Protein backbone atom coordinates (compact mmCIF):
# COMPACT_ATOMS: atom_id res chain seq x y z
CA UNK A 1 0.00 0.00 0.00
CA UNK A 2 1.22 3.53 -0.78
CA UNK A 3 2.36 5.69 2.12
CA UNK A 4 -0.27 8.28 1.29
CA UNK A 5 -3.04 5.71 1.43
CA UNK A 6 -1.82 4.49 4.83
CA UNK A 7 -1.79 8.09 6.08
CA UNK A 8 -5.38 8.53 4.94
CA UNK A 9 -6.41 5.43 6.86
CA UNK A 10 -4.58 6.83 9.89
CA UNK A 11 -6.65 10.01 9.64
CA UNK A 12 -9.83 7.93 9.75
CA UNK A 13 -8.54 5.86 12.70
CA UNK A 14 -7.80 9.06 14.62
CA UNK A 15 -11.36 10.22 14.00
CA UNK A 16 -12.62 6.87 15.30
CA UNK A 17 -10.50 7.17 18.46
CA UNK A 18 -11.79 10.63 19.31
CA UNK A 19 -15.41 9.74 18.58
CA UNK A 20 -15.24 6.48 20.58
CA UNK A 21 -13.74 8.17 23.64
CA UNK A 22 -16.00 11.18 23.38
CA UNK A 23 -19.16 9.09 23.11
CA UNK A 24 -18.63 7.61 26.57
CA UNK A 25 -16.59 10.47 27.99
CA UNK A 26 -13.97 7.94 29.05
CA UNK A 27 -10.90 6.23 27.68
CA UNK A 28 -7.35 7.09 26.69
CA UNK A 29 -7.08 9.16 23.51
CA UNK A 30 -3.53 10.55 23.87
CA UNK A 31 -1.50 7.36 23.52
CA UNK A 32 -4.01 6.02 21.00
CA UNK A 33 -3.43 8.99 18.68
CA UNK A 34 0.34 8.75 19.15
CA UNK A 35 0.42 5.06 18.18
CA UNK A 36 -2.08 5.26 15.31
CA UNK A 37 0.55 5.29 12.58
CA UNK A 38 2.24 2.18 13.99
CA UNK A 39 -1.04 0.24 14.17
CA UNK A 40 -1.99 1.21 10.62
CA UNK A 41 1.45 0.23 9.35
CA UNK A 42 1.37 -3.14 11.15
CA UNK A 43 -2.15 -4.16 10.19
CA UNK A 44 -2.36 -2.73 6.66
CA UNK A 45 1.17 -3.31 5.45
CA UNK A 46 3.71 -5.09 7.62
CA UNK A 47 2.19 -8.11 9.33
CA UNK A 48 1.72 -11.34 7.43
CA UNK A 49 -1.86 -12.41 8.18
CA UNK A 50 -4.15 -15.23 7.17
CA UNK A 51 -6.70 -13.96 4.67
CA UNK A 52 -9.80 -15.51 3.14
CA UNK A 53 -10.63 -15.53 -0.60
CA UNK A 54 -11.99 -11.97 -0.34
CA UNK A 55 -8.83 -10.69 1.33
CA UNK A 56 -10.47 -10.41 4.75
CA UNK A 57 -8.37 -11.50 7.73
CA UNK A 58 -9.25 -14.83 9.31
CA UNK A 59 -8.75 -14.88 13.06
CA UNK A 60 -7.64 -17.99 14.89
CA UNK A 61 -6.45 -17.90 18.48
CA UNK A 62 -3.35 -20.02 17.78
CA UNK A 63 -2.14 -17.66 15.05
CA UNK A 64 -0.05 -20.40 13.46
CA UNK A 65 1.96 -19.35 10.41
CA UNK A 66 1.09 -15.68 10.78
CA UNK A 67 2.66 -12.70 12.51
CA UNK A 68 1.18 -11.94 15.92
CA UNK A 69 0.65 -8.67 17.71
CA UNK A 70 0.18 -8.14 21.45
CA UNK A 71 -0.86 -4.87 23.05
CA UNK A 72 0.68 -4.66 26.50
CA UNK A 73 -0.42 -1.12 27.33
CA UNK A 74 -4.07 -2.07 27.01
CA UNK A 75 -5.44 1.36 27.84
CA UNK A 76 -4.84 2.47 24.26
CA UNK A 77 -7.60 0.07 23.25
CA UNK A 78 -9.37 2.67 21.04
CA UNK A 79 -6.62 2.56 18.41
CA UNK A 80 -6.43 -1.25 18.62
CA UNK A 81 -10.19 -1.62 18.13
CA UNK A 82 -10.39 0.90 15.33
CA UNK A 83 -7.56 -0.70 13.37
CA UNK A 84 -8.88 -4.23 13.92
CA UNK A 85 -12.27 -3.14 12.63
CA UNK A 86 -10.94 -1.08 9.73
CA UNK A 87 -8.69 -3.97 8.63
CA UNK A 88 -11.63 -6.35 8.60
CA UNK A 89 -11.59 -8.34 11.85
CA UNK A 90 -15.08 -7.20 12.91
CA UNK A 91 -17.72 -4.72 11.70
CA UNK A 92 -16.73 -1.06 11.92
CA UNK A 93 -20.20 -0.25 13.29
CA UNK A 94 -19.30 -2.12 16.46
CA UNK A 95 -16.89 0.69 17.40
CA UNK A 96 -19.98 2.54 18.62
CA UNK A 97 -20.27 0.06 21.51
CA UNK A 98 -16.86 0.94 23.01
CA UNK A 99 -16.92 0.87 26.84
CA UNK A 100 -20.68 0.32 26.92
CA UNK A 101 -22.55 -2.43 28.76
CA UNK A 102 -22.53 -5.85 27.03
CA UNK A 103 -19.94 -4.73 24.47
CA UNK A 104 -17.09 -6.86 23.12
CA UNK A 105 -15.06 -3.64 23.15
CA UNK A 106 -14.27 -3.50 26.85
CA UNK A 107 -12.38 -0.55 28.32
CA UNK A 108 -9.25 -2.66 28.16
CA UNK A 109 -8.91 -5.48 25.62
CA UNK A 110 -10.04 -8.94 26.66
CA UNK A 111 -10.44 -12.40 25.20
CA UNK A 112 -13.46 -12.98 27.43
CA UNK A 113 -15.80 -11.45 24.85
CA UNK A 114 -14.16 -13.32 21.97
CA UNK A 115 -13.42 -10.24 19.91
CA UNK A 116 -11.49 -11.34 16.81
CA UNK A 117 -7.94 -10.05 16.86
CA UNK A 118 -7.44 -10.09 20.63
CA UNK A 119 -5.37 -12.94 22.07
CA UNK A 120 -4.77 -11.80 25.65
CA UNK A 121 -6.30 -9.46 28.19
CA UNK A 122 -4.18 -6.42 28.98
CA UNK A 123 -4.59 -3.35 31.11
CA UNK A 124 -2.73 -4.24 34.25
CA UNK A 125 0.65 -3.14 32.93
CA UNK A 126 3.90 -4.99 32.45
CA UNK A 127 2.60 -8.38 31.33
CA UNK A 128 2.56 -8.24 27.52
CA UNK A 129 6.27 -8.75 26.93
CA UNK A 130 6.14 -12.03 28.87
CA UNK A 131 3.10 -13.19 26.89
CA UNK A 132 4.85 -12.32 23.64
CA UNK A 133 7.88 -14.32 24.82
CA UNK A 134 5.66 -17.37 25.41
CA UNK A 135 3.99 -17.01 22.03
CA UNK A 136 7.41 -16.67 20.38
CA UNK A 137 8.65 -19.76 22.21
CA UNK A 138 5.57 -21.63 20.96
CA UNK A 139 6.38 -20.56 17.41
CA UNK A 140 9.86 -21.99 17.80
CA UNK A 141 8.46 -25.28 19.11
CA UNK A 142 5.98 -25.32 16.21
CA UNK A 143 8.73 -24.58 13.66
CA UNK A 144 6.76 -21.49 12.66
CA UNK A 145 9.06 -18.76 11.31
CA UNK A 146 6.70 -15.78 11.70
CA UNK A 147 7.33 -12.76 13.93
CA UNK A 148 5.75 -11.72 17.24
CA UNK A 149 5.24 -7.97 17.76
CA UNK A 150 4.46 -6.42 21.11
CA UNK A 151 3.80 -2.79 21.99
CA UNK A 152 4.49 -1.36 25.44
CA UNK A 153 4.29 2.11 26.91
CA UNK A 154 7.37 3.95 28.12
CA UNK A 155 5.74 4.58 31.49
CA UNK A 156 5.14 0.83 31.56
CA UNK A 157 8.91 0.31 31.65
CA UNK A 158 8.65 1.16 35.36
CA UNK A 159 7.00 -2.25 35.97
CA UNK A 160 9.42 -4.90 37.26
CA UNK A 161 7.96 -7.73 35.21
CA UNK A 162 9.05 -5.96 32.01
CA UNK A 163 12.66 -6.50 33.07
CA UNK A 164 12.08 -10.12 33.95
CA UNK A 165 10.92 -10.62 30.38
CA UNK A 166 13.62 -8.34 28.94
CA UNK A 167 16.22 -10.63 30.52
CA UNK A 168 14.47 -13.87 29.53
CA UNK A 169 13.93 -13.16 25.82
CA UNK A 170 17.56 -12.63 24.71
CA UNK A 171 18.73 -15.47 26.99
CA UNK A 172 16.31 -17.82 25.23
CA UNK A 173 17.49 -16.46 21.86
CA UNK A 174 13.97 -15.50 20.83
CA UNK A 175 14.95 -13.53 17.75
CA UNK A 176 11.33 -13.74 16.59
CA UNK A 177 10.29 -11.07 19.11
CA UNK A 178 10.05 -7.43 18.03
CA UNK A 179 9.20 -5.25 21.03
CA UNK A 180 8.20 -1.66 20.44
CA UNK A 181 8.13 1.03 23.12
CA UNK A 182 5.86 4.02 22.64
CA UNK A 183 8.54 6.53 23.56
CA UNK A 184 6.40 9.60 24.10
CA UNK A 185 7.98 10.52 27.45
CA UNK A 186 4.54 10.97 28.98
CA UNK A 187 2.46 9.03 31.46
CA UNK A 188 -0.76 9.75 33.28
CA UNK A 189 0.74 11.74 36.16
CA UNK A 190 3.21 13.71 34.06
CA UNK A 191 6.42 13.25 32.12
CA UNK A 192 8.22 9.92 32.47
CA UNK A 193 11.35 11.76 33.51
CA UNK A 194 9.43 13.56 36.25
CA UNK A 195 7.39 10.61 37.52
CA UNK A 196 10.12 7.96 37.64
CA UNK A 197 12.87 8.46 35.10
CA UNK A 198 13.52 5.46 32.82
CA UNK A 199 16.95 6.96 32.10
CA UNK A 200 18.71 5.40 29.11
CA UNK A 201 16.28 2.75 27.89
CA UNK A 202 18.34 2.00 24.78
CA UNK A 203 21.43 1.29 26.85
CA UNK A 204 19.45 -0.83 29.29
CA UNK A 205 17.97 -3.05 26.57
CA UNK A 206 21.34 -3.30 24.84
CA UNK A 207 22.89 -4.45 28.10
CA UNK A 208 20.18 -7.11 28.36
CA UNK A 209 21.11 -8.42 24.90
CA UNK A 210 18.64 -6.77 22.54
CA UNK A 211 19.27 -5.26 19.12
CA UNK A 212 18.00 -1.71 19.74
CA UNK A 213 16.66 0.47 16.94
CA UNK A 214 14.96 3.85 16.92
CA UNK A 215 12.05 4.90 14.75
CA UNK A 216 9.97 8.01 14.16
CA UNK A 217 6.52 6.74 15.17
CA UNK A 218 4.54 9.55 13.61
CA UNK A 219 6.27 9.25 10.24
CA UNK A 220 4.59 6.52 8.21
CA UNK A 221 7.47 6.18 5.78
CA UNK A 222 9.98 5.71 8.59
CA UNK A 223 7.80 3.11 10.34
CA UNK A 224 7.37 1.08 7.16
CA UNK A 225 11.06 1.31 6.33
CA UNK A 226 12.18 0.34 9.85
CA UNK A 227 9.79 -2.60 10.20
CA UNK A 228 10.03 -3.95 6.65
CA UNK A 229 13.77 -3.52 6.32
CA UNK A 230 14.44 -5.23 9.61
CA UNK A 231 16.54 -8.30 8.89
CA UNK A 232 15.82 -10.22 12.02
CA UNK A 233 18.69 -12.11 13.55
CA UNK A 234 17.67 -15.66 14.34
CA UNK A 235 19.00 -15.40 17.89
CA UNK A 236 18.69 -11.73 18.84
CA UNK A 237 15.38 -10.00 19.63
CA UNK A 238 14.70 -6.46 18.44
CA UNK A 239 13.68 -3.52 20.59
CA UNK A 240 12.39 -0.42 18.82
CA UNK A 241 12.24 2.88 20.65
CA UNK A 242 9.40 4.53 18.79
CA UNK A 243 9.47 8.31 19.14
CA UNK A 244 5.91 9.63 19.16
CA UNK A 245 3.95 12.55 20.44
CA UNK A 246 1.07 11.73 22.73
CA UNK A 247 -2.03 13.13 21.04
CA UNK A 248 -0.36 13.37 17.60
CA UNK A 249 -2.65 14.54 14.79
CA UNK A 250 -4.56 17.15 16.79
CA UNK A 251 -2.58 20.35 17.34
CA UNK A 252 -3.84 21.24 20.79
CA UNK A 253 -3.40 17.66 22.07
CA UNK A 254 0.02 16.85 20.63
CA UNK A 255 2.79 16.50 23.20
CA UNK A 256 0.59 17.08 26.23
CA UNK A 257 0.32 14.31 28.85
CA UNK A 258 -2.96 15.80 30.09
CA UNK A 259 -4.66 14.00 27.16
CA UNK A 260 -3.56 10.59 28.45
CA UNK A 261 -6.96 9.78 29.87
CA UNK A 262 -9.24 12.73 29.12
CA UNK A 263 -12.07 12.92 26.61
CA UNK A 264 -12.71 16.02 24.49
CA UNK A 265 -15.67 18.32 25.06
CA UNK A 266 -17.98 19.07 22.07
CA UNK A 267 -16.16 22.28 21.14
CA UNK A 268 -12.76 20.58 21.26
CA UNK A 269 -14.18 17.67 19.26
CA UNK A 270 -15.33 19.93 16.45
CA UNK A 271 -11.91 21.54 16.32
CA UNK A 272 -10.09 18.18 16.40
CA UNK A 273 -12.24 16.48 13.76
CA UNK A 274 -11.72 19.50 11.54
CA UNK A 275 -8.02 18.68 11.53
CA UNK A 276 -8.60 15.05 10.50
CA UNK A 277 -10.09 14.72 7.01
CA UNK A 278 -12.31 11.85 5.86
CA UNK A 279 -10.78 10.66 2.61
CA UNK A 280 -12.49 9.07 -0.39
CA UNK A 281 -13.62 5.50 0.18
CA UNK A 282 -13.87 5.88 3.95
CA UNK A 283 -16.54 7.17 6.29
CA UNK A 284 -17.18 7.54 10.01
CA UNK A 285 -18.76 4.53 11.72
Amino acid at each position, binding site marked *: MEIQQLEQIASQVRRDILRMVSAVNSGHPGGSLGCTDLFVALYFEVMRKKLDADGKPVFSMDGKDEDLFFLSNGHISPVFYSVLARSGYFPVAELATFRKLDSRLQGHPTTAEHLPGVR*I*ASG*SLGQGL*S*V*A*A*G*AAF*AKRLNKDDKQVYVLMGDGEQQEGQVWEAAQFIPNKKLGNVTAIIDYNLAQIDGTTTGVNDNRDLAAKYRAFGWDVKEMQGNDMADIIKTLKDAKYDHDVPTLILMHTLMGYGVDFMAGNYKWHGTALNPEQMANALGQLPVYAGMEDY
Partner: protein
Amino acid sequence: MKKFDYTDKKDTRSGFGAGMHELGKTNPNVVALTADLAGSLKLDAFIKDFPDRFIQCGIAEANMIGVSAGLTIGGHIPFATTFANFATGRVYDQIRQSVAYSEKNVKICASHSGLTLGEDGATHQILEDLGMMKMLPNMTVICTCDYNQTKAATLAIAEHVGPVYLRFGRPVLPVFTPADQKFEIGKAWHMNEGDACSVFVTGNLVWEAVLAGEQLAAEGIEIDLINIHTIKPLDSEAILNSVKKTGCAVSVEEHNILGGLGESIAHVLAQNLPRPQEFVGTKDTFGESGTPDQLLEKYGLKAANIVEAVKKVMARK
Protein backbone atom coordinates in the same frame (compact mmCIF):
# COMPACT_ATOMS: atom_id res chain seq x y z
CA MET B 1 -13.53 -47.84 59.60
CA LYS B 2 -12.23 -49.17 56.34
CA LYS B 3 -8.58 -50.19 56.45
CA PHE B 4 -6.21 -48.22 54.24
CA ASP B 5 -3.04 -50.24 53.73
CA TYR B 6 0.23 -48.94 52.41
CA THR B 7 3.62 -50.43 51.72
CA ASP B 8 5.51 -47.30 50.83
CA LYS B 9 5.89 -43.68 51.88
CA LYS B 10 6.70 -40.96 49.33
CA ASP B 11 6.35 -37.23 48.87
CA THR B 12 3.49 -35.93 46.75
CA ARG B 13 5.82 -33.76 44.67
CA SER B 14 7.49 -36.95 43.40
CA GLY B 15 4.06 -38.07 42.20
CA PHE B 16 3.92 -34.83 40.25
CA GLY B 17 7.39 -35.47 38.79
CA ALA B 18 6.37 -38.98 37.75
CA GLY B 19 3.19 -37.64 36.18
CA MET B 20 5.15 -35.04 34.24
CA HIS B 21 7.57 -37.66 32.93
CA GLU B 22 4.65 -39.76 31.71
CA LEU B 23 3.01 -36.72 30.10
CA GLY B 24 6.28 -35.98 28.35
CA LYS B 25 5.99 -39.34 26.65
CA THR B 26 2.26 -39.28 25.91
CA ASN B 27 1.44 -35.63 25.19
CA PRO B 28 3.76 -33.73 22.83
CA ASN B 29 2.05 -30.42 23.70
CA VAL B 30 3.05 -30.50 27.36
CA VAL B 31 5.78 -27.99 28.28
CA ALA B 32 7.32 -27.71 31.75
CA LEU B 33 8.45 -24.38 33.20
CA THR B 34 10.09 -23.59 36.49
CA ALA B 35 11.53 -20.62 38.34
CA ASP B 36 14.83 -22.07 39.58
CA LEU B 37 13.18 -24.98 41.41
CA ALA B 38 13.38 -27.84 38.92
CA GLY B 39 14.94 -30.15 41.50
CA SER B 40 12.39 -29.37 44.19
CA LEU B 41 9.56 -30.01 41.73
CA LYS B 42 11.11 -33.35 40.69
CA LEU B 43 11.33 -32.43 37.03
CA ASP B 44 14.70 -34.15 36.49
CA ALA B 45 13.35 -37.05 34.43
CA PHE B 46 11.24 -34.76 32.25
CA ILE B 47 14.20 -32.45 31.62
CA LYS B 48 16.51 -35.34 30.77
CA ASP B 49 14.15 -36.88 28.21
CA PHE B 50 12.43 -33.76 26.85
CA PRO B 51 14.94 -30.91 27.08
CA ASP B 52 13.33 -28.92 24.25
CA ARG B 53 10.05 -28.79 26.13
CA PHE B 54 11.55 -27.54 29.38
CA ILE B 55 11.85 -23.80 30.06
CA GLN B 56 14.03 -22.63 32.93
CA CYS B 57 12.76 -19.14 33.73
CA GLY B 58 15.11 -18.32 36.56
CA ILE B 59 13.86 -16.51 39.65
CA ALA B 60 11.22 -14.54 37.79
CA GLU B 61 7.80 -15.98 38.54
CA ALA B 62 5.74 -13.15 37.06
CA ASN B 63 7.45 -13.65 33.71
CA MET B 64 6.93 -17.42 33.98
CA ILE B 65 3.17 -16.96 34.27
CA GLY B 66 3.10 -14.60 31.28
CA VAL B 67 5.29 -16.91 29.19
CA SER B 68 2.93 -19.76 30.08
CA ALA B 69 -0.06 -17.76 28.91
CA GLY B 70 1.74 -17.03 25.64
CA LEU B 71 2.64 -20.68 25.08
CA THR B 72 -1.05 -21.67 25.14
CA ILE B 73 -1.68 -19.34 22.21
CA GLY B 74 0.54 -21.59 20.10
CA GLY B 75 -1.39 -24.67 21.27
CA HIS B 76 0.92 -25.84 24.03
CA ILE B 77 -0.01 -26.95 27.54
CA PRO B 78 2.36 -25.23 29.97
CA PHE B 79 2.89 -26.60 33.47
CA ALA B 80 4.31 -23.67 35.46
CA THR B 81 5.99 -24.96 38.59
CA THR B 82 7.40 -23.48 41.77
CA PHE B 83 6.65 -23.35 45.51
CA ALA B 84 3.03 -22.61 46.33
CA ASN B 85 3.80 -19.19 47.76
CA PHE B 86 5.61 -18.01 44.64
CA ALA B 87 3.06 -19.71 42.37
CA THR B 88 0.12 -17.75 43.78
CA GLY B 89 0.61 -14.82 46.14
CA ARG B 90 3.61 -13.45 44.33
CA VAL B 91 1.92 -13.56 40.93
CA TYR B 92 -1.76 -13.12 41.70
CA ASP B 93 -2.35 -10.32 39.21
CA GLN B 94 -0.45 -12.12 36.45
CA ILE B 95 -2.61 -15.20 37.00
CA ARG B 96 -5.73 -13.07 37.22
CA GLN B 97 -5.26 -11.12 33.99
CA SER B 98 -3.07 -13.24 31.70
CA VAL B 99 -4.39 -16.68 32.72
CA ALA B 100 -7.81 -16.72 34.41
CA TYR B 101 -9.47 -13.72 32.74
CA SER B 102 -7.78 -14.57 29.44
CA GLU B 103 -9.03 -18.18 29.73
CA LYS B 104 -5.60 -19.67 29.05
CA ASN B 105 -4.91 -23.38 29.37
CA VAL B 106 -2.14 -22.94 31.96
CA LYS B 107 -1.49 -25.49 34.71
CA ILE B 108 -0.02 -23.85 37.81
CA CYS B 109 1.61 -26.62 39.79
CA ALA B 110 2.68 -25.78 43.30
CA SER B 111 4.78 -27.75 45.69
CA HIS B 112 5.79 -26.96 49.28
CA SER B 113 2.34 -25.73 50.23
CA GLY B 114 1.25 -25.22 53.81
CA LEU B 115 3.05 -25.63 57.12
CA THR B 116 4.62 -28.99 56.23
CA LEU B 117 7.24 -27.23 54.16
CA GLY B 118 8.78 -27.15 57.62
CA GLU B 119 12.00 -25.45 58.60
CA ASP B 120 11.95 -22.66 55.98
CA GLY B 121 9.30 -20.92 58.02
CA ALA B 122 6.43 -18.53 57.38
CA THR B 123 7.85 -16.67 54.35
CA HIS B 124 7.49 -19.91 52.39
CA GLN B 125 4.55 -21.58 54.15
CA ILE B 126 1.56 -20.24 52.27
CA LEU B 127 -1.77 -20.91 53.97
CA GLU B 128 -3.88 -18.63 51.77
CA ASP B 129 -3.35 -20.06 48.28
CA LEU B 130 -6.50 -22.15 48.01
CA GLY B 131 -8.55 -19.10 48.90
CA MET B 132 -6.84 -16.84 46.37
CA MET B 133 -7.11 -19.41 43.60
CA LYS B 134 -10.71 -20.45 44.24
CA MET B 135 -11.82 -16.81 44.10
CA LEU B 136 -10.63 -16.51 40.50
CA PRO B 137 -13.36 -17.11 37.92
CA ASN B 138 -12.49 -19.88 35.41
CA MET B 139 -9.95 -21.47 37.79
CA THR B 140 -10.05 -25.14 38.76
CA VAL B 141 -8.42 -25.82 42.14
CA ILE B 142 -7.04 -29.23 43.15
CA CYS B 143 -5.19 -30.34 46.30
CA THR B 144 -3.87 -33.90 46.43
CA CYS B 145 -3.15 -36.29 49.28
CA ASP B 146 -0.50 -38.84 48.29
CA TYR B 147 1.96 -39.84 45.58
CA ASN B 148 -0.51 -41.81 43.48
CA GLN B 149 -3.31 -39.25 43.65
CA THR B 150 -0.89 -36.47 42.72
CA LYS B 151 0.40 -38.42 39.74
CA ALA B 152 -3.15 -39.22 38.59
CA ALA B 153 -4.20 -35.58 39.01
CA THR B 154 -1.19 -34.41 37.00
CA LEU B 155 -2.27 -36.64 34.11
CA ALA B 156 -5.91 -35.56 34.45
CA ILE B 157 -5.31 -31.82 34.32
CA ALA B 158 -3.44 -32.16 31.03
CA GLU B 159 -6.68 -33.48 29.52
CA HIS B 160 -8.79 -30.70 31.05
CA VAL B 161 -8.98 -27.51 28.96
CA GLY B 162 -8.71 -24.40 31.13
CA PRO B 163 -6.59 -22.93 33.91
CA VAL B 164 -5.83 -25.21 36.87
CA TYR B 165 -4.13 -24.72 40.22
CA LEU B 166 -2.66 -28.02 41.46
CA ARG B 167 -1.38 -27.95 45.04
CA PHE B 168 0.84 -30.59 46.59
CA GLY B 169 3.72 -30.68 49.01
CA ARG B 170 6.98 -31.73 50.45
CA PRO B 171 6.19 -34.17 53.30
CA VAL B 172 6.68 -37.89 52.89
CA LEU B 173 3.29 -39.55 53.34
CA PRO B 174 1.90 -43.09 53.14
CA VAL B 175 0.98 -44.09 49.59
CA PHE B 176 -2.51 -45.44 50.24
CA THR B 177 -4.54 -44.56 47.14
CA PRO B 178 -4.57 -46.97 44.16
CA ALA B 179 -1.71 -46.71 41.66
CA ASP B 180 -4.09 -47.26 38.74
CA GLN B 181 -6.74 -44.73 39.82
CA LYS B 182 -8.49 -42.51 37.32
CA PHE B 183 -8.59 -38.99 38.72
CA GLU B 184 -11.96 -37.34 38.14
CA ILE B 185 -11.81 -33.55 38.52
CA GLY B 186 -14.68 -32.32 40.69
CA LYS B 187 -15.69 -35.76 41.97
CA ALA B 188 -15.16 -36.36 45.67
CA TRP B 189 -13.77 -39.70 46.88
CA HIS B 190 -15.98 -41.41 49.42
CA MET B 191 -13.40 -43.15 51.60
CA ASN B 192 -15.52 -44.54 54.44
CA GLU B 193 -19.24 -44.98 55.12
CA GLY B 194 -20.44 -43.83 58.50
CA ASP B 195 -23.36 -41.94 60.03
CA ALA B 196 -21.85 -40.21 63.08
CA CYS B 197 -20.23 -37.22 61.38
CA SER B 198 -19.12 -36.13 57.91
CA VAL B 199 -15.40 -35.42 57.67
CA PHE B 200 -14.34 -33.54 54.54
CA VAL B 201 -10.58 -33.47 54.09
CA THR B 202 -8.09 -32.38 51.45
CA GLY B 203 -4.37 -32.64 50.73
CA ASN B 204 -1.66 -33.64 53.16
CA LEU B 205 -4.10 -34.11 56.04
CA VAL B 206 -6.10 -36.94 54.47
CA TRP B 207 -3.85 -39.48 56.18
CA GLU B 208 -4.37 -37.74 59.54
CA ALA B 209 -8.11 -38.04 58.94
CA VAL B 210 -7.71 -41.78 58.29
CA LEU B 211 -5.89 -42.11 61.62
CA ALA B 212 -8.62 -40.07 63.30
CA GLY B 213 -11.27 -42.32 61.76
CA GLU B 214 -9.54 -45.40 63.17
CA GLN B 215 -9.34 -43.89 66.66
CA LEU B 216 -12.99 -42.86 66.56
CA ALA B 217 -14.07 -46.27 65.27
CA ALA B 218 -12.33 -47.85 68.26
CA GLU B 219 -14.64 -45.73 70.41
CA GLY B 220 -17.68 -46.79 68.39
CA ILE B 221 -17.93 -43.61 66.30
CA GLU B 222 -18.01 -44.30 62.55
CA ILE B 223 -17.29 -41.22 60.45
CA ASP B 224 -18.38 -40.59 56.88
CA LEU B 225 -14.97 -39.78 55.40
CA ILE B 226 -14.80 -37.90 52.14
CA ASN B 227 -11.70 -36.69 50.35
CA ILE B 228 -12.39 -33.40 48.57
CA HIS B 229 -9.42 -33.28 46.23
CA THR B 230 -11.10 -30.70 43.98
CA ILE B 231 -11.81 -27.52 45.93
CA LYS B 232 -13.33 -25.94 42.82
CA PRO B 233 -15.60 -27.02 41.23
CA LEU B 234 -16.81 -28.38 44.54
CA ASP B 235 -18.72 -31.66 44.64
CA SER B 236 -21.76 -30.18 46.43
CA GLU B 237 -23.81 -33.29 45.83
CA ALA B 238 -21.38 -35.50 47.74
CA ILE B 239 -21.27 -32.97 50.59
CA LEU B 240 -25.04 -32.68 50.88
CA ASN B 241 -25.67 -36.43 50.59
CA SER B 242 -23.23 -37.05 53.40
CA VAL B 243 -24.51 -34.33 55.74
CA LYS B 244 -28.13 -35.40 55.13
CA LYS B 245 -27.09 -38.72 56.64
CA THR B 246 -24.83 -37.50 59.47
CA GLY B 247 -26.30 -34.12 60.41
CA CYS B 248 -22.92 -32.49 61.10
CA ALA B 249 -19.58 -31.79 59.42
CA VAL B 250 -15.89 -31.30 60.08
CA SER B 251 -13.63 -29.78 57.42
CA VAL B 252 -9.90 -30.51 57.53
CA GLU B 253 -7.20 -28.69 55.59
CA GLU B 254 -3.64 -27.45 55.86
CA HIS B 255 -4.77 -23.91 55.10
CA ASN B 256 -6.23 -20.88 56.79
CA ILE B 257 -9.82 -21.56 57.86
CA LEU B 258 -10.58 -18.18 56.25
CA GLY B 259 -10.97 -18.79 52.54
CA GLY B 260 -10.24 -22.50 52.41
CA LEU B 261 -12.15 -25.73 51.83
CA GLY B 262 -14.09 -25.34 55.07
CA GLU B 263 -15.57 -22.06 53.94
CA SER B 264 -16.62 -23.54 50.62
CA ILE B 265 -18.40 -26.35 52.45
CA ALA B 266 -20.03 -23.93 54.89
CA HIS B 267 -21.34 -22.00 51.91
CA VAL B 268 -22.97 -25.12 50.45
CA LEU B 269 -24.47 -26.10 53.80
CA ALA B 270 -25.72 -22.61 54.65
CA GLN B 271 -27.57 -22.42 51.37
CA ASN B 272 -29.00 -25.92 51.27
CA LEU B 273 -28.80 -27.76 54.57
CA PRO B 274 -27.72 -25.68 57.58
CA ARG B 275 -25.99 -28.01 60.06
CA PRO B 276 -23.22 -27.56 62.64
CA GLN B 277 -19.67 -27.54 61.26
CA GLU B 278 -16.24 -27.46 62.89
CA PHE B 279 -13.12 -26.26 61.10
CA VAL B 280 -9.71 -27.94 61.39
CA GLY B 281 -7.21 -25.61 59.78
CA THR B 282 -4.89 -22.78 60.72
CA LYS B 283 -6.66 -20.00 62.57
CA ASP B 284 -5.79 -16.84 60.67
CA THR B 285 -2.11 -17.05 61.47
CA PHE B 286 1.26 -17.31 59.76
CA GLY B 287 3.42 -20.38 60.33
CA GLU B 288 6.98 -20.68 61.65
CA SER B 289 10.06 -22.90 61.49
CA GLY B 290 9.93 -26.46 62.82
CA THR B 291 9.64 -30.05 61.62
CA PRO B 292 6.42 -30.82 59.73
CA ASP B 293 5.19 -32.99 62.56
CA GLN B 294 5.92 -30.40 65.25
CA LEU B 295 4.10 -27.76 63.21
CA LEU B 296 1.02 -29.89 62.59
CA GLU B 297 0.86 -30.51 66.31
CA LYS B 298 1.39 -26.89 67.37
CA TYR B 299 -1.17 -25.55 64.88
CA GLY B 300 -3.78 -28.20 65.70
CA LEU B 301 -3.82 -30.21 62.48
CA LYS B 302 -3.17 -33.74 63.80
CA ALA B 303 -5.49 -36.75 64.01
CA ALA B 304 -6.14 -35.89 67.66
CA ASN B 305 -7.47 -32.47 66.64
CA ILE B 306 -9.78 -34.07 64.10
CA VAL B 307 -11.06 -36.51 66.75
CA GLU B 308 -11.74 -33.59 69.07
CA ALA B 309 -13.54 -31.61 66.35
CA VAL B 310 -15.75 -34.60 65.49
CA LYS B 311 -16.81 -35.04 69.09
CA LYS B 312 -17.43 -31.33 69.49
CA VAL B 313 -19.61 -31.06 66.40
CA MET B 314 -21.54 -34.23 67.25
CA ALA B 315 -22.44 -32.65 70.59
CA ARG B 316 -23.87 -29.68 68.68
CA LYS B 317 -26.25 -31.80 66.57
